[in-house]
């Protein structure tokens, strides 16, 4: 049971990350390949504050997310107005720097020996892991709700316009650079929050957790599910993490000697899935969804057609 709660909690973190990536990449067109970096700032930030500085868990998470926001803002200032490849490289590099620093700054992070122990909040309750899973569920639902709100909002429309043709959007008076910067900073900060919330899940932090495979898993999930669909993240994580890491690893009757091959088999399946999706359904399983906007009164055409003919 505990293991299931742990797996589901982890899956919720993945869904949250993919949802944020949907905002960054699906809506705003920012290819963030440093997901694990921002998540890692939250994870280790929370860990260090909690273990070394004795800050209570929830404030530690909040502070670590703010740190992730601030770093993302600075990174955005440096690279966000450059082309996609530059952003991709810079965010990937950022994540690498984070994981390198975690290894090298032993005094703070414990280096390769690890950092622990980070306890669940309400640690004297027996159902603490369940309570924490519910907290994660609430956060992730809020993220999904917010991103649906964003899709249907004027800001979301501006993001789509920026993704399609930034120069044109700017020429219509949109401060595209600032919009992108803030959206990026805030969503990265929320990735940091999910990182902070992952700290008590893992209890013990090791630099290995900051490997780029997290970034790739989130990207694969989003691309499979549908980067432009608000529910693409959920579907994507279900067919990857949910299917393989939870269902197959936990419940499939795989003999012990073959079990070590499972991770490789999983990667193989991800690869095949990805190729299939890109070939046959490039927009992902769900495709793209349209803003759901309360249809405003369609103004009757009578007063419309003569507007152009009228002479002043």
């Amino acid at each position, binding site marked *: 049971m505990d293991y299931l709660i742990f797996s589901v909690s982890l899956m919720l973190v993945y869904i949250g990350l993919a949802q944020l990536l949907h905002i960054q990449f699906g809506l705003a067109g920012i290819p963030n390949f440093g997901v694990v970096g921002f998540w890692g700032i939250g994870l280790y930030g929370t860990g260090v504050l909690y273990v070394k500085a004795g800050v209570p868990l929830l404030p530690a998470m909040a502070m670590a997310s703010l740190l992730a926001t601030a770093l993302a803002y600075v990174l955005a200032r440096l690279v966000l107005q450059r082309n996609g490849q530059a952003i991709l490289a810079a965010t990937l590099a950022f994540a690498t720097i984070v994981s390198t620093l975690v290894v090298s700054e032993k005094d703070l992070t414990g280096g390769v020996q690890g950092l622990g122990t980070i306890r669940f909040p309400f640690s004297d309750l027996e159902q603490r892991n369940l309570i924490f899973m519910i907290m994660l569920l609430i956060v992730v639902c809020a993220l999904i709700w*917010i991103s649906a*709100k*964003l899709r*249907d*909002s*004027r*800001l*979301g*429309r*501006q993001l*789509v*316009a920026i*993704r*399609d*043709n930034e*120069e*044109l*959007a*700017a*020429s*219509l*008076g*949109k*401060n*595209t*650079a600032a*919009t992108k910067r*803030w959206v990026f900073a805030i969503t990265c900060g929320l990735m940091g929050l999910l990182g902070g919330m992952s700290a008590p899940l893992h209890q013990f932090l090791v630099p290995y957790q900051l490997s780029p495979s997290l970034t790739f898993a989130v990207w694969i999930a989003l691309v499979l599910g549908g980067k432009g669909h608000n529910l693409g993240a959920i579907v994507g994580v279900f067919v990857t993490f949910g299917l393989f890491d939870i269902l197959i690893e936990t419940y499939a009757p795989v003999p012990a000697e073959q079990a070590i091959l499972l991770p490789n088999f999983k990667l193989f399946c991800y690869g095949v899935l990805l190729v299939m999706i890109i070939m046959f359904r490039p927009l992902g399983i769900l495709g*793209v969804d349209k*803003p759901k*906007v*309360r249809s*405003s*009164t*369609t*103004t009757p*055409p009578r*007063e*419309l*057609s003569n*507007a*152009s*003919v*009228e*002479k*002043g």
Partner: protein
Amino acid sequence: MRLEANNLTKAYHTQEVVNIEKVTFGSAGLEGLIGPNGAGKSTLMGLLTRRITPSSGTMKLHIEDKTHPLNPFHSHQVARIGLIKTNQRIQGFDSLTIRDSLRLAATPARAEGFKSLFSGQRDSEEVEEKVARLVEAFPFADRNGYAMSGGEKKLLDILRCLIAEPKLLLMDEPTAGLPEDITRSVMDMVREKVQAGAMRVVVVEHDLPLIWEYCEYVHFLSEGSILFEGAPEEVKANRVVAEKYMGV
């Protein structure tokens, strides 16, 4: 209203494509800017709206007793003080419908902040009305869908600029790719707004009859420099213009 450029130059590598001692737009209601292919008309418009960075020179926009130096501005700031340009080459937002594209242009940037996530209705009645009026005035194949043909995209580009209600609109070859009758209704709509005092317009065109018909003042640009300016009749009669452009 006066849009003024002094000693404005733009060079790509060593090739100077714009070199203008002084030019002023916006004194008349509707002005034309003509010149041969490659004269630098589009480049000049790009410079004035700060989409292109000048090699040297200054640009200023005098508007309602205020003078805005344009050099330090970004392109969105230029648009916000009311200077907007339509595009010669087709540009658009592929994932926005015709209506959404217009709504976007009609929405001021201050209404697009994070708060807009929680406003009940996305667009105000006022915006919807303006959008509906424009969409219904033109024969789009699918008024609730996307701009399909090049012509529709070109038209949408112009309408986006109009709905943003600029004070000074620069139009880069509005007729290119548009059928004659649409061009007419666009230009009539533009003229009507100009006569109502809502905005002033500079049109870049190769379609000279259109220039002669609509413009009160015409600038002639050739090889990056303004060679002649005047009323349409004067420009028509000018020898330099005739030689350099009309191939007489």
